[in-house]
């Protein structure tokens, strides 16, 4: 019966093509929308995902990596004595303004890393080396933020909070969820740039010894210092992402746009399957008259939908891969996971089957006796 379904479908290429366009449209739309959404939202946890720390320790109520509340720096010694901790370093994330040669200014996020370990430093450098950040007045900025920062070259000077800063290296694609550029520097300079007190910091970044359970160490940190919260990298990444997800309604607006597109695609599919069946009601009556069981008729209709879904998903995912290759950029990354690709195909398949119910309800009503008239 499946073979029968495929052959009859292929016989009406025009309709099949239309339905395919609907499926392909839906698959591409869900993946690109979803990919853009995940690409955007994942920027919210960039520092955590690339920071190479196993555990992030911060103020009791931290909820987003970019907006910490400072804690006393001396607590770091207490963390270092906890079994399983390889090392722990203070880390600063703060906001300040950069004064530009043109006379303009730009609010930036200053990130201060431990001078010795450079944990949480900038990555993916296109000019200079990570350790250049140790040089006098050294800062690392991203080349994609050039427009905002008056196109600084390596060696150029800028001013942060009235303090001298020199661009010593540049990264490519280190951009956060917000529009403010990141400026990486050492802990000591970051304190000066942000006007913080040198005995305070934003986080402690913790590296664990081989094979230690991070959750157990988090628990130990919390009981040793009740004023702080400790999260594993994955936990804090998720928390930072959720911050924007829940506070902005971003998920809802992307989701709604995607659903709308899905609906349009599926209406095309349902419409076409329906038209396909309407054209052939007489043929279904014939099948029933010569002895097709209800189950066999269902098999045909579902096969029509499945063939569409399968072929459409494959073509759609192929287009998505191309689109991703061409259009994904650090500014608007398209992050398509295997789960998204698979999930969208399953979703589209399910909807195809549901949209086959409409034509099926029509076929059900066909009386085989109609072949006699």
């Amino acid at each position: 019966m499946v073979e029968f379904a495929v052959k009859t479908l292929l016989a009406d290429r025009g309709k099949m093509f239309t339905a395919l366009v609907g499926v392909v449209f839906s698959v591409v739309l869900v993946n690109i929308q979803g990919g853009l959404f995940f690409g955007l939202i994942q920027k919210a946890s960039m520092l955590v995902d690339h920071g190479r720390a196993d555990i992030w320790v911060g103020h009791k109520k931290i909820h987003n990596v970019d907006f910490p509340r400072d804690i006393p720096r001396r607590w770091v010694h207490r963390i270092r004595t906890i079994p399983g901790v390889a090392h722990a370093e203070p880390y600063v994330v703060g906001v300040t303004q950069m004064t530009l040669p043109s006379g303009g200014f730009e609010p930036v996020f200053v990130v201060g890393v431990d001078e010795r370990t450079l944990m949480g430093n900038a990555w993916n450098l296109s000019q200079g080396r990570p350790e250049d950040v140790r040089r006098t007045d050294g800062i690392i900025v991203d080349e994609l933020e050039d427009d905002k920062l008056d196109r600084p070259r390596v060696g150029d000077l800028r001013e942060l909070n009235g303090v001298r800063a020199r661009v010593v290296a540049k990264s490519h694609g280190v951009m956060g969820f917000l529009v403010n550029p990141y400026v990486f520097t050492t802990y000591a300079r970051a304190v000066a740039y942000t006007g913080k007190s040198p005995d305070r910091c934003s986080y402690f970044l913790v590296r664990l010894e081989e094979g230690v359970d991070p959750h157990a160490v988090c628990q130990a940190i919390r009981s040793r210092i009740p004023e702080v919260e400790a999260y594993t990298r994955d936990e804090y990444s998720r928390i930072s992402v959720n911050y924007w997800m829940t506070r902005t309604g971003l998920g809802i607006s992307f989701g709604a746009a995607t659903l709308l597109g899905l609906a349009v695609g599926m209406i095309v599919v349902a419409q076409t399957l329906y038209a396909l069946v309407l054209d052939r009601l007489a043929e279904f009556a014939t099948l029933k008259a010569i002895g097709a069981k209800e189950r066999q008729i269902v098999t045909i209709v579902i096969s029509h939908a499945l063939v569409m879904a399968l072929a459409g998903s494959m073509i759609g995912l192929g287009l998505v891969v191309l689109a991703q290759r061409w259009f994904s950029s650090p500014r608007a990354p398209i992050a398509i996971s295997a789960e998204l690709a698979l999930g969208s195909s399953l979703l589209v398949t399910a909807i195809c089957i549901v949209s086959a119910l409409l034509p099926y309800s029509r076929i059900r009503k066909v009386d085989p006796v109609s072949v006699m008239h």
Partner: protein
Amino acid sequence: MLAIAASDLHKSYRRGATVTPVLRGADFHVQVGEAVFLIGPSGSGKSTLLSILGCLLTPDSGTLEILGRAVETLSAREATELRLRSIGFVFQRFQLIEGLSALDNVCIPLKLAGWPAGKARRRAAELLERVGLADHLRARPGRMSAGQCQRVAIARALALEPQLILADEPTASLDAHSGQEIMTLFRALMRDHQVTAVVVTHDPRIFSFADRICEVVEGRVRAAEAVA
């Protein structure tokens, strides 16, 4: 032995308040191996009777036995199974599936009966050869003449070697020459398979192929006078 035993069949069509009585106490009996032609004026109920014999339509009252089975006692599923395995249908407008080749059309009942694809194809090819279409296995109905289409339809009706063939005006869409050819072929196949047939027709040129001719008049069936 009787292939069809129908007694006192009644059937009316209801559309809203209007009731059209079509069969009014029809009796109809056919021996195994017999070819009985049904004639009668347009609208007399020939197709209605044929639909009832083919288990496509339920009579309002009366008793009906097809191939020894009381039709009233059959479930919908059993009736479908009976149509598939024991009854072959031939229609005026062939009712072939447009998107499928001649071979695939003949394969349909075989596939519905669960035959594996290869075996079904061999059987279908053999049947198409028997109806003279060995060179048209891959042809679509749209590319074939009316006579060729009806041959495909006959091959499809015979695919599962049914004991009963019901044909509604099988030559009405054909020219005189193809009509004669089809009926000659049809009778030859009937003989080979010892099939019983009921053929509704308006076409006096093929009356010579009948063993017996009956007429449907005023909702009843009687032996036709003029041509017997």
